[in-house]
């Protein structure tokens, strides 16, 4: 017999699509169950006292009824909204990249609570117009949480300590080869420049809090090139293109 359960939870709306004539389906990131896919009925048709205004990139308290793993939201109250109107394309597409990465890596595990607060923090930074740094930070922390951050301290082949310099990052082996051993890693490799490795290490070892100050951030050029390389690295693992990326890059060229 189908059993109906009820759940109250805090969550962040990360993406949505229209469903049927009046309904909308939301992907809601939760601290304990990863992404919950839930339907909100008649949301495009009527206003309802149980619902605050609801769109993507909002932290809300939800009440849901669950039958057979099918979630119906019957109440949603705002906790925090990040993207104030008017919203710029760069902010929207950066937020969408966070959403796509979160969806691509979604699984239910002990990291859910960490990822939840990471997404929350990164959306806040993006709404404060900190784009590429936030995306690189998100990529690195996500790779660490998922256990696929590359080895960048010692050579994968000879175990010698990596000295400052430019190196090849091997996608298959997930790490760096020193210059002596790099003959062995011509295939599926990405060149990481010294500055990029430094930024990679810096973010790996630093937890920034919610109130990130843009003045503390290193040069823009390194951020963007590192972002693109990590994006290639991540695509190698997920086998998924990020649809928002192309639109973010074209909007960066415009401003």
């Amino acid at each position, binding site marked *: 017999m189908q059993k109906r359960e009820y759940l109250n939870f805090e969550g962040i709306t990360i*993406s949505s699509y*229209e*469903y*049927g*004539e009046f309904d909308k389906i939301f992907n809601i990131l939760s601290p304990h169950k990863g992404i919950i896919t839930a339907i909100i009925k008649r949301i495009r048709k009527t*206003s*309802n*006292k149980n*619902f*605050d*205004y609801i*769109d*993507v*990139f909002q932290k809300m308290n939800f009440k849901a009824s669950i039958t057979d793993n099918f979630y119906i939201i019957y109440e949603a109250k*705002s906790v925090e*909204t990040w*993207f104030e*109107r*008017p*919203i*710029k*394309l760069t*902010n*929207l*597409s950066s937020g*969408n*990249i966070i*959403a*796509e990465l979160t969806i691509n890596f979604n699984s239910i595990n002990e990291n859910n609570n960490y990822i939840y607060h990471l997404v929350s923090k990164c959306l806040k930074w993006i709404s404060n117009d900190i784009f590429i740094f936030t995306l690189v930070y998100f990529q690195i922390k996500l790779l660490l949480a998922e256990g696929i951050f590359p080895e960048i301290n010692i050579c994968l082949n000879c175990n010698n300590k990596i000295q400052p310099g430019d190196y090849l990052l091997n996608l298959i082996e997930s790490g760096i080869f020193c210059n002596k051993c790099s003959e062995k890693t011509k295939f599926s490799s990405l060149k990481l420049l010294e500055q990029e490795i430094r930024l990679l290490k810096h973010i790996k070892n630093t937890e920034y809090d919610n109130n990130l100050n843009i003045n503390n951030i290193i040069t823009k050029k390194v951020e963007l090139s590192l972002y693109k390389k990590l994006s290639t690295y991540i695509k190698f693992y997920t086998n998924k293109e990020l*649809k*928002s990326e*192309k*639109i*973010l890059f*074209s*909007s960066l060229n415009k401003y």
Partner: protein
Amino acid sequence: MNKKNVSISSVISDLINHLNQLPGIGPKTAERLAFHIIKSPENKILSLADSLIKSKQKLSFCNNCFIVTEINPCNICTDEMRDQKSICIVQDSIDAYAIESTNNYNGSYHILNGYISPINGIGPNELTISSLIKRIEKKPPTEIILATNPTIEGDATATYISNQIKSANIKISRLAVGIPFGGDLDYTDPKTLTQAFNSRQIFE
């Protein structure tokens, strides 16, 4: 013979698949519609098929405003009684029809054919924005009304367009967001209520 191995006719499954691809129609609804079609009288279904074919053969997008039309340029773009110096920008033709049904607006339209949605791979280049900019350069309007939906994506679309066409001589406005007629203040969410409050008007 095991009855469970009897498969559904491929004609029916094709029909269900086609219906399922329409927006807002899930597999269950597609199935229901398919069996409704099968049970309907033949003449009704032939005339449905006929209008489907005609909609593809006779309708196209207006070269100027991109509304769905039988003649090109459309009736709205060629109507001299209309204020062609006012352009109302909407997401889809259906939104223009909704505004037309109010009999309250007498300018022209520009249909974007969607809205910016990076997560779905839809950026400014996927919409009719470059045609809009060319149209404005060729015949500068005095007024632009941004009538995209008040969602995050609709709003990002409006913001993007307004940044592209900013000029001292064009009055750019955005549709107001507020409390619906017959609505109840107590039932209005705080964000809408704040917006309605901020865009309050002189009472005459």
